[in-house]
């Protein structure tokens, strides 16, 4: 067996409680490396077009990578994939914490859950012993209570859990899965898929060991990377604020989504900033497994309306979502809502995507108080925000409509999609693409729907043409307001993100801080596993993962017509701030992107030649 990997894939059928282990397919490992790659390869093969996302034939796949369960800095992450109930295409989400290394110590690189249990249950994996256990007393409880309850039932405080909350049980289409209570794998409704199988969570515990191919070389690389991270100019800011450091940066650049993307700056930004959070509410730092910059933070509210609230995070996306995005200047409301969403188990971006859409319509007089069930959805109405989070999670009142996501809610109420900030049904993050056009192209083409983590072309933030010139011979690639040069930018960054998601360290550190570029990634893979890939070959792994996920969507009917962004980003410029007076030329950007990928300009489908170059000839038959 190759080193680095745990070496086995566990497949559990919860319909009858049967399970089996297969040795890891080392050919697949060379082609896809691990994590997101393993899920992409198997989901494409096993979950066929038109499979009901919430039916027993959908499969929930959890996979981690070959660097995880070692001391490789930040290697702690896993991906969960299935056909998404929110988007109908490739559903996929990634989180850190301590669940993934425990999977490896238990002997597994990937866990596949199939079928549907007869009654509410949870899965317990203790190395070779797999049980489907009765979830009496645990079903219906919050993420936090379920984590504690499962550990109590198993009489094992060292077990690691991956759990869905009551929102998933109630069929909210964007319910997530949570490791260590707060490490959210919450995008695209993977919690909803788990609950649809009558499964509340997976508990895993292992005592095995991971060995690496070249221990001395591995240690040397680890020490080098740890040093680079510690000496990085962003180290201190990330340690103190995590991603919340972005909020003031985004406001200054005029791309801080405010009042549902009708503005790019927030007049109260400094009141809800990462700096304020760190100074007034944080009590300690926290990190995922093997992290060199523990960038998560524990907060506590000690007085006032929200006294007694405490929790972990929030990240920038959550902090911005519950403040500028909803026109709310009270940082404590954001901290309270963050903790509430984690307890109930819902994705914050989709939750706020739905609430923000409703608030914009309400303020514009396009949604009435009768339609909201009496809620006054004015910007910054704190009580309404908290009420809606509860209503969404229970699918009660107006929340029942929002629980399908903004995109479907708009359809149901016949309101049109102009104020829906989503791509392919997936709600966007907190970065206005009018001021970050490469990010915008990334949203349009991302294989899981509107998303930045499939590419995250952070070099745009520097707004320095020399970077794009050097990397791509295209100065516009790294100029944030330029429409030109983005095809090369997004292709490169998508492939890079896919490789990181396959190896499974933290993208925030390894990619955004420029620590693990392709040659280094290949070196890490070889030292850990003995698998030797050239720089071109490891880039091809990234292309292959992206292409297979794209093909999963194409099989469900998507193409160029769906690779778009919300209308305001192409039609309506912002009027104030650092990203004003410009819109996206999405068609030009798509042409560049498809050309770079070797895909059809007309359909946005990979050509047979592009598939062949990646050894994916066998998928060509699925191109309509």
């Amino acid at each position, binding site marked *: 067996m190759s080193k680095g990997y745990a070496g086995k894939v566990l497949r559990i059928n919860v319909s009858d409680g049967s399970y089996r282990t297969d040795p890891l397919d080392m050919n697949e490992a060379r082609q896809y490396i691990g994590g997101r790659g393993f899920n992409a390869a198997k989901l494409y093969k096993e979950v066929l077009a038109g499979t009901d996302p919430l039916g027993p034939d959908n499969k929930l796949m959890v996979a981690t990578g070959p660097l995880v369960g070692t001391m490789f800095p930040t290697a702690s992450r896993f991906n969960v994939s299935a056909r998404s109930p929110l988007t109908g295409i490739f559903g996929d989400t990634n989180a850190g914490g301590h669940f993934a290394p425990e999977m490896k110590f238990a002997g597994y690189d990937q866990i596949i859950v199939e079928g549907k249990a007869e009654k509410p249950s949870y899965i317990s994996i203790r190395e070779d012993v797999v049980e489907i256990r009765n979830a009496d007393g645990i079903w219906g409880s919050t993420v*936090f209570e379920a984590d*504690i309850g499962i550990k109590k039932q198993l009489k094992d405080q060292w077990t690691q859990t991956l759990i869905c909350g009551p929102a998933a049980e109630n069929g909210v289409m964007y319910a997530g899965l949570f490791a260590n209570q707060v490490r959210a794998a919450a995008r695209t409704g993977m919690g909803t898929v788990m609950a649809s199988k009558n499964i509340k969570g997976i508990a895993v515990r292992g005592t095995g060991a991971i060995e690496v191919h070249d221990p001395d070389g591995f240690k040397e690389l680890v020490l080098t990377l740890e040093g680079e991270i510690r000496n990085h100019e962003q180290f201190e800011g990330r340690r103190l604020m995590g991603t919340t450091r972005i909020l003031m940066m985004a406001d200054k650049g005029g791309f801080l989504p405010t009042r549902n993307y009708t503005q790019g700056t927030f007049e109260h930004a400094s009141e809800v900033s990462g700096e304020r959070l760190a100074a007034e509410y944080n009590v300690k*730092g926290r*990190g995922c497994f093997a992290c060199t910059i*523990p960038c998560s933070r524990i907060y506590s509210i*000690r007085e006032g309306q929200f006294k007694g609230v405490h929790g972990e995070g929030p990240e920038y996306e959550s902090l911005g979502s519950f403040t500028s995005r909803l026109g709310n200047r009270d940082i404590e409301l954001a901290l309270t809502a963050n903790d509430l969403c984690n307890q109930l188990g819902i994705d914050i971006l989709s939750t706020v995507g739905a609430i923000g859409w409703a608030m914009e319509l309400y303020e514009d007089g396009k949604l009435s108080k009768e339609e909201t069930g009496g809620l006054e959805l004015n910007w910054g109405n704190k009580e309404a925000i908290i009420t809606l989070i509860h209503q969404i999670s229970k699918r009660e009142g107006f929340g029942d409509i929002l629980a399908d996501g903004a995109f479907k809610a708009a359809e149901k109420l016949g309101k049109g999609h102009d104020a829906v900030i989503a791509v392919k049904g997936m709600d966007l993050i907190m970065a206005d693409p009018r001021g970050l056009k490469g990010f915008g192209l990334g949203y349009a083409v991302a294989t899981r729907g509107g998303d930045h983590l499939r590419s995250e072309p952070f070099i745009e933030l520097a707004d320095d043409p020399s970077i794009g010139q050097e990397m791509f011979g295209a100065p516009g690639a790294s100029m944030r307001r330029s429409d030109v040069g983005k095809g090369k930018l997004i292709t490169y960054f998508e492939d890079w993100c896919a490789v990181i998601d396959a190896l499974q360290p933290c993208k925030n550190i390894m990619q955004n801080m420029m620590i693990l570029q392709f040659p280094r990634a290949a070196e890490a893979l070889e030292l850990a596993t003995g698998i030797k890939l050239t720089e071109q070959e490891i880039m091809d792994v990234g292309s292959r993962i992206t292409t297979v996920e794209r093909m999963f969507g194409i099989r469900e009917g998507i193409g160029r017509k769906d690779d778009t962004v919300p209308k305001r980003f192409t039609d309506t410029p912002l009027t104030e701030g650092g990203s004003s007076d410009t819109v996206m030329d999405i068609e030009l950007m798509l042409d560049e992107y498809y050309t770079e990928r070797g895909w059809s300009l007309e359909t946005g489908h990979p050509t047979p030649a592009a598939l062949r170059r990646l050894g994916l000839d066998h998928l060509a038959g699925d191109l309509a």
Partner: protein
Amino acid sequence: MKRIKVKAELCAGCRQCEMVCSFEHFNKFSPSLARITVHKEDRYGLDYPVACRQCNECPPIEACPEQALSRKDGLTWCSWQDCTGCGICEKVCTYDAIKVTDKALVCDQCGGDPQCVARCPTGTLEYAEMPPSTETPVEAFSRLKEEWGFE
């Protein structure tokens, strides 16, 4: 004597100490092979690494039926030749600082340069002259919860 000092308020719970310990002693990675273990309470974000504190009175030494445990160069030490892995030491240690995986694992301070201390990313661990600590993780967690206003 020098001991491993823990500042629990700084610990981020990353468990790199466990990985480094396992690797430096066994050339592979496993919490089950680590002589240091991070105790946690996730709801409050609390973390506390536990390794042998080198107590002046050591109940495991007294309790070991094989006399496998003794003092060597001032440190509690297990002779693996004599250890049968019965687990009694694990049960009687006041601080859960001994782990039995096949044989009893006790912190050896890496011969005077503990690698967990050297590699801790947050400065939680320090190698310093000090009396043995008597605070358990549970006591430390109660103290911090009160200090930080958790209800």
